């Protein structure tokens, strides 16, 4: 026979009114869903931003005028773009005071891939001089693509060793990269040599203003300690007219995104706080009613020798049970939405999005559960303090 414990009595009391108990748990669940879901979203976007800033490498990005937004779309969301400027710019930029290094990149957009109607971005780079893509590929233990080889992002169909058809030409997939949470996931990387070979026999490539030595953008690394704005202005002064340029300062791009994240986090926190207050309010009301409704029962407990502490224990146990059930329910619901739909969420947010690791998720979940557990006992505090006051017999009679 199971012992008759405080927990047993508390759970029995909750089972007696299943709909009401479910309603209370739901109030807590709404709060924990908002808090955990919002925290996951914010943490994943922050992860994506960190990933972006780690991989961006360059301090300044030089693009054709009017294409700065397209470049950002390509980098953040992998929205394929193709734009071109004269290829000799990369060498000329090295002579600008404050510029330490430059690396050209070529962007191509396919309108058809072999398997599906989703357009993909191709980025070509020079492995010898590149300081943006090459280093993080090396750190990801990815081989440099050789002749007729490509390295694909995590959302491209195809495994290492397989084949990929681009512009009607077949390439071997040298490696497949891990998720980055940014546009690189839907990007195919190859060398400048492969890209130029490809364009000579291109089918279905979106080509505007293309010359044989064209590049799409030049990544600029600035000398340490130099003022980015000054160097950017120097570049514009010298080359804007001749090459019809625009400048994107990487730090500004990232801080703009970070501001959007800040806005999202603020909204999530406000909502979570509002729902916590609502849950606490609902639970406080419930426990006041409970005290009133169960006066006879509590009176009886006192008659049978229960101390005030014991009664308080029963009520607190009920409060904890409601908080635990609601907290877990909300967390499960948030996981149920964010995990399966994470790609959909990422594309809807239009922000870099890299899902947090399971340990980090577990920590967030534990923190959320702790706060959910606290709602019930805090809300029941007043009732718990009032319990058992006064004569036990009067309590018993007042419940009749």
């Amino acid at each position, binding site marked *: 026979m199971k012992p008759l414990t405080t927990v047993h009595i508390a759970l029995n009391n909750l089972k007696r009114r299943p709909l009401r108990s479910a309603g209370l748990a739901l109030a807590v669940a709404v709060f924990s869903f908002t808090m955990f879901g919002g925290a996951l979203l914010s943490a994943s976007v922050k992860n994506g931003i960190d990933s972006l800033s780690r991989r961006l490498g360059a301090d300044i990005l030089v693009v054709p005028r009017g294409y700065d937004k397209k470049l950002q779309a390509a980098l953040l969301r*992998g929205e394929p773009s193709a734009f071109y400027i004269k290829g000799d710019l990369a060498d000329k930029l090295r002579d600008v005071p404050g510029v330490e290094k430059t690396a050209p990149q070529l962007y191509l957009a396919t309108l058809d*891939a072999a*398997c*599906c*109607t*989703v357009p993909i971005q191709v980025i070509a780079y020079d492995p010898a001089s590149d300081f943006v893509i090459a280093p993080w590929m090396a750190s990801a233990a990815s081989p440099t693509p050789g002749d007729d080889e490509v390295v694909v992002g*995590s*959302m*491209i*169909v195809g495994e290492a060793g397989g084949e990929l058809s681009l512009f009607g030409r077949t390439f071997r997939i040298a490696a497949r990269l891990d998720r980055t949470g940014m546009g690189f*996931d*839907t990007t195919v990387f190859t060398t400048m040599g492969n890209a130029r070979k490809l364009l000579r026999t291109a089918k279905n490539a979106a080509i505007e203003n293309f010359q044989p030595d064209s590049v799409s953008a030049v990544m600029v690394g600035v000398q340490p300690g130099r003022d980015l704005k000054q160097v950017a202005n120097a570049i514009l002064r010298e080359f804007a007219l001749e090459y019809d340029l625009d400048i994107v300062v990487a730090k500004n791009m990232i801080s703009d995104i970070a501001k959007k994240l800040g806005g999202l986090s603020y909204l999530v926190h406000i909502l979570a706080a509002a729902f916590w207050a609502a849950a606490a309010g609902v639970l406080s009301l419930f426990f006041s009613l409970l005290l009133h409704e169960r006066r006879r029962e509590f009176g009886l407990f006192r008659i049978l020798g229960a101390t005030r502490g014991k009664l308080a224990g029963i009520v607190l146990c009920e409060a904890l049970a409601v908080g635990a059930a609601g907290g877990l329910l909300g967390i499960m619901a948030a996981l*149920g*939405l964010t995990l*399966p*739909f994470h*790609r*959909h969420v990422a*594309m809807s947010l239009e922000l870099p999005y890299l899902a947090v690791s399971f340990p980090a998720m577990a920590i967030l979940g534990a923190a959320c559960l702790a706060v959910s557990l606290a709602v019930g006992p805090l809300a029941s505090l007043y009732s718990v303090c009032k319990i058992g006051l006064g004569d036990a017999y009067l309590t018993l009679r007042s419940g009749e």
Partner: protein
Amino acid sequence: MKQSLMVGLPIALLGALLAAVPSHILPVCETPHGAAPMRCHWTGMMMIGFGLTFFLVGALLFFCRTNGVRTGLSAAALLLTATAGTVPDFLIGMCAAPAMACRTGTYPGVMAVLALTAAACAANLVYLRHLATRERHGDETSHHRSHRAEQS
């Protein structure tokens, strides 16, 4: 009435939701003009069919009063969710590219609704069993009471 609502309504609503996911809420990939529909289109059609079936099962559960029939319907619906779950991955399939609309939206939406439907069916089975046990106990109590009444 309360019992009928509890066993029938969730499954009916989830059935309607299942039909709505691939058609309205998280639609499958659009078929390019002049091209043949892709696999995700047919998967979507199957899900609409399954969704309508679950809706009808929910309606039947609502109107049926017999516990045995309700239990049978719930068990059948549970098996049906398992079958439906094999359509997007095995029986028909979806687009291969992870970035396609059917992969990012429709697939997880459909699987989530099927999981909820399976849970609702399982909950029904547990609840109906509990009702059957309570009915048996009620019979024993009234037998006990009438036996006591006879004795006194």
